[in-house]
Every structure is written in C-alpha cells, then in structure tokens.
C-alpha cells in the first residue's frame, strides 16, 4: 500500500441556544424542560451572587485569593445537570462551584477552602464530589482512578473531570487521557476553554485549532460545544454519560466559554487582556442568553428577576455568615490528619508545639515550663451537618 489514507477524523461543534436566546428546536428535543431551564437559571443567579460576594470578602480582607466562575455558569451547570446527583462523581479543579452546588455541596465549604481552611475540603460523605485542587492537571488522573474503580467494581457510575484550557498542556492531562482510553474508564473530560490561563491566551497555549482535537490522540470521542449554552452543554454531556454507561469508555468535551472576571482576585486582567475582547464576551454572557430564552417563552420577567436576585442575596448572605462563624480550626488539626495513627515523634511535636529537642524534653534542663496548648475545637464532622447553602434540587 504505497500511499494511502490510514486515518480520518472530523470534529463537530454544537450550539442549540444562540447568544440571542434563540433555540434550535430540533436539536433541543429531549434535552432540558422548561422547568429545568428555569431552575438552572435561578442557580445561575445564585452562583453569580456567590461570586460577587466572594470577591468582596477577598477585597475586604476576610478571605484569601478567590477564582470567580463568572461567565462559566452555563458550561458548569449544563454539564453537571446531565449527571446523576450522588451517583456520578464530580472532580473539579477550582472554578466550578456551580456544578458542585448543584450536586449538593453546601456553599460555605467553598468559602472555607479559600479562607485557608482545610475543612472546606471535608466533603460530606453522601456526596459524589472531590475537593478542589490547586495543582493544574493533577486531578485528571485522580478522576481516571475513580472511574476505573467504578468499572472494576461494576458500579453504574460515571465520573466527570473539569479542567481549563491551560491544563491541557500538562503532562498529567496527557497521561490521564491515555489511561482513560486504554482502560475504557467511564469518564468525561470536560475542558472549560475560557480563553485564558491567567495571562496566557489559548493561541500561546497550543497551536491546535481546537482543544477538542486533542482527544484524537487517544482515539477518544470528542466534540466542541458552545459553553454558554445550557442546552448544548447538557446534550453533549448526556451523550457522553450514555456512552460511558454503555461501556463505551471516555469522552472529551470542549466547552467554549469565557472568563468574564480576572483570573483570580490576585490578578489584574487589565494588564494583558484587550478591552474589546472582554466587551465582546460580555455579549455572550450565559445569564443574559438564558434569561432572553426564558422571557421569550414567557417563563420569566423583570419581577421574577428581582425576586430571584433578592432570594439569592439573602441566601448568599447567610452562606457568608455561616462560613465566617465557623470557629477557627484547632492547632491540633495540623497534626491529627497527617496519618490515621500518629507516630510517636509527631505526637511529641503536637504535645509540646516544639521541634527543638530540649524544648520537647524540658527535663533535660528542668527549667522551662511546657507551653500551654490553646483550647481546641475539632475539625470535620460537625461542620458537615450544618448543611447550609445546599441549593441543589436535581432529581437523583
């Protein structure tokens, strides 16, 4: 066979609801009901309010660095809506709060995390959610492992892992895609292409025309979707879930969305991002489009809007209170969760709050009183029960 084509691929793009709120009815068939869209839109409002308030918390010094989700609500909610709550497992990176809230994560957990409190990662056991991760790309491998475990145990469970455009450059992403396809793991790789990795635009991140085509390297089914379109995101995720449940292994989704805010509160996108680009993106805001759609179907109006905004404000206010009222963690916590059983030497460090040997064994000099420990409040369990801020209403 001297010269011949041995491989061929096409990649499709899907949009169902356009930026003007117009729906492609035929493509929309069997996707989201009116009630679904209304409820998801209400979630969007809540999440946007959460973002705003989190931003203020940081600015007023009550919270550390925070990455807003602003602009990516449809991508995260549309995809998460296609998963079964408490069954299908969500592995986030750090920007997909709406998906986690939809699947039941009490909202103050996310605030706690960014307030520098590990208890924000102590996800309640009844939820199928992994904690936020900070090292870009690493979580994709964990997600593959979780999906693989489900396959090994013959559980009917699909995993979705979220990551950004920047994450596709990491070695871990590559190894995860490869493992998933070789192992036929029931997993969905959802790439939230928001145009930027901090200050690096997609054009400097990759020379490929789409992120979707990265999946071809692994023989993995792949598609590009309008990430600001709830319908398209729901549909492509649903297809991927169905494929995985039928034993078809992993899928890749590139969600074309946009980061409407700075990278995080520590960033100033004004330094690198063209103003026109942002302006154009604002026109594709998923909240605007979803509202137009609902209004076009007479399911929404200005009054409902302000009612929803009021409700969101009240809810988030409460969430912020809860997060702020969580008692400071005990110093003991830094020692108590290193291992299931504490090695003797570490116990000594905990007991004395010293690492110097004389300080740890004052009998050596017989002079220094041991340091008084602070009164302790213990981590974890209690918090879980607070259960505040669960905005979830997805049927199981």
């Amino acid at each position, binding site marked *: 066979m001297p010269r011949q084509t041995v491989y061929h691929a096409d990649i499709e793009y899907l949009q169902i609801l356009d930026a003007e709120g117009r729906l492609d009815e035929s493509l929309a068939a069997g996707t989201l009901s009116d009630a679904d869209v209304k409820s998801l839109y209400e979630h969007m409002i809540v999440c946007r309010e959460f973002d705003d308030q989190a931003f203020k918390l940081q600015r007023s010094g009550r919270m550390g660095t925070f990455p807003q989700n602003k602009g990516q609500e449809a991508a995260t909610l549309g995809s998460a809506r296609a998963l079964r709550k408490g069954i299908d497992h969500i592995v986030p990176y750090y920007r997909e709060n709406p998906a986690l809230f939809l699947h039941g994560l009490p909202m103050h957990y996310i605030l706690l995390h960014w307030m520098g409190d590990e208890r924000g990662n102590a996800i309640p056991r009844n939820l199928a959610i992994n904690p936020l991760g900070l090292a870009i790309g*690493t979580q994709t491998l964990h997600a593959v*492992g979780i999906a*693989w475990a489900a396959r090994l145990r013959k559980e009917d469970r699909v995993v979705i892992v979220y990551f950004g455009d920047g994450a596709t450059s990491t070695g871990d992403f590559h190894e995860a895609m490869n493992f998933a396809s070789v192992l036929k793991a029931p997993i969905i790789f959802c790439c939230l292409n928001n145009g930027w990795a901090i200050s690096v635009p997609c054009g400097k991140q990759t020379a490929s025309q789409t992120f979707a085509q990265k999946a071809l390297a692994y023989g993995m089914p792949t598609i590009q979707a309008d990430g600001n379109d709830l319908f398209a995101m729901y549909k492509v995720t649903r297809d991927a879930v169905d494929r995985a449940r039928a034993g078809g292994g992993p899928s890749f989704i590139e969600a074309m969305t946009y980061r409407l805010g700075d990278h995080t509160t520590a960033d100033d996108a004004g330094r690198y991002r063209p103003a026109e680009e942002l302006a154009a993106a604002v026109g594709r805001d998923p909240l605007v489009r979803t509202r137009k759609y609902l209004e076009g179907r007479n399911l929404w109006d200005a009054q409902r809007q302000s009612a929803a905004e009021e409700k969101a404000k009240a809810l988030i206010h409460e969430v912020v209170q809860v997060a702020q009222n969580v008692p400071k963690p005990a110093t003991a916590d830094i020692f108590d969760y290193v291992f299931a059983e504490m090695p003797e030497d570490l116990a000594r460090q905990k007991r004395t709050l010293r690492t110097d040997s004389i300080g740890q064994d004052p009998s050596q000099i017989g002079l220094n009183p041991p340091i008084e420990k602070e009164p302790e409040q213990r981590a974890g369990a209690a918090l879980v029960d607070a259960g505040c801020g669960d905005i979830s209403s997805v049927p199981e």
Partner: protein
Amino acid sequence: MPKLDLVGAINLALSQEMQRDDRIVILGEDVGLNGGVFRVTDGLQKRFGCDRVVDTPLSESGIIGTSIGLAMAGMRPIPEIQFEGFLGPAYDQIVNQAARCRSRTRGAFTCPMTIRVPIGGGIHAPELHSDSPEAIYAHTPGLKVVMPSRPYDAKGLLISAIRDPDPVIFFEPKRVYRSFKEDVPEAEYTIPIGKAAIVSEGTDLTLITWGAMVSECLQAIDQLEEASVELIDLRTIYPVDVETIVQSVTKTGRAVVVHEAPRTGGFGAEISALIQERCFLSLQAPVQRVTGFDVAMPYYKLEKQYLPDAERIGRGMVDCLRY
C-alpha cells in the same frame, strides 16, 4: 518452611494479600504477563486476572495519579515504579497529592496505597537504575518510607504496608533481590512499620543502616576485631525508630550511620541530628556518616568507588572508636 529470596518473599506477600483482600490492584509497567522486570509479580496476573494485575502505559505520574483515584474510591492499589530513577515523573503526585490527601481533607479522603520501588546500586545497572532517593520521601509528611534488608522482614513489612491506611513507599534493595534465601513462613505475620531491628548486639559502637548496606555493615563488623558493635537495621526510614537508636547509643556512646545516597541532605543527617539531640551527654565521639559521595551516582564502572563498602565502613568505625 520455604526458603525464599527477597523476590520470592515479596511475591508471596503480594499473592497472599491479594487473596485476602479483593480491593487490591497491582499496576505498573510490565507487571503482568512479564511478571515485572525483576519477576517480583511473577504469576500474579495468571492467578488473579488482568483486572487485578494491570500492565499500564509508560507513565509514572499516570500510575501514581490513577492509584490515588483508586485509593480515594476505596480500592487498595499497589503501584510498581520500575526503578527508583523513574520515581521522578511521579514525584509530584506522590509528594504533593498522595501524601497530603488525608491532611488536606481533614480525613474525608484518604490514600491507602503501597508504592513498590526497587532501589539502590551495586548490580551493574545502567544510569538511573542505581539511585537511593529515600531521604527525599522521608522529608515528605504524610508518607511512610520502608526498606527491608531481608526476605523475612520484607514479607512482614509489605503486609503491614498494604494494610496501612496511609500511603507507604516500599523500597526494595535490588542488590538483595537474589542475594540470599532464608526461612520465610508461609503463615501470615506482620512486622510493624516504625520498628528497627537490632541485627547484632554490641557495646562499643552503634552502626545504623538500612537496605543493601546491612550486609556490607555485617561484613565490616566481621572484619573489625577491636570492638563490639551493635548493628541497627532501620527497616523503616519514616517514621524512624528513634527510641531503639537512642537506647543503643546511650549504651555505646558512639555511632556511625551508613547509607548509599549522597551525604549532604541524606537521611544520615537526620539520624546524626537526632542522636546528638537525644544522646548528647553520652556521646564519646561525633556521629559519623559513611555514605555515598556528593556526586551523581556514577555509571557502573565506578559504582564500587562510590558505594560505601565494608572497608570504608570499617575505617569509619575505627576512627570513631579511636576518637
């Protein structure tokens, strides 16, 4: 009682534990049909099937990263990294992910896994097949680091590692793999992580080491006529059994630490620091370190020149004794 070498003892422990606990999955490069490049997993795929003994793609980060996911999901992965020189690509997943899993989630997620890794020099292997990075992992809170020096210990320690609720790196000294056989009971037994062994008792000097250096130390002791040496095989690098060391050095007043890794920042530094902290008034001489030099592990023509041997250990002991 069967006489087994290190490879056989580890293979036995793996197969007994897999039999006992069906959450265990072995994964790594060439661990399946090929039985691992050292044959440590020989026969296991045949016995337990392709789902439980898995040949992975050539991706060390992938092996450890997916193991973390398996562990989080309730499995008990036993990943193999083919040689210690290939731990590098997995360093991030081990140190920044696996080791912190319990701590960063306040116990909501845990990461029970046993990472098996052949370690050390002396077998005329190519580059990156003869290193000794144990100190790196001992400096990583959340990890336990184990290194048996003999078949009997290997079986008992490996079973403890596999049952441990936290991540354990289990280093297997390549040089010992086939070097000798000893009685290894078929019956189940464990050796606790964190307990050193006193290999030989003595009164004049404490010699502390681990892994393949145990037999070099035994030779050195054999050749030393002038003194009575207590040899401690750490077996676990972290958490280190400081009590056993302190007791011994309090008695002998002198200590020499031996390891293959370069001296600067090696685990010998920690042992030396601990001894002078805890036995200050008993010490008759400074704690001595007989270790690899502060150079990249040489290719094999010069590996003998790099590695501590009985002669160098002997001189170290003599000088310490005469101080």
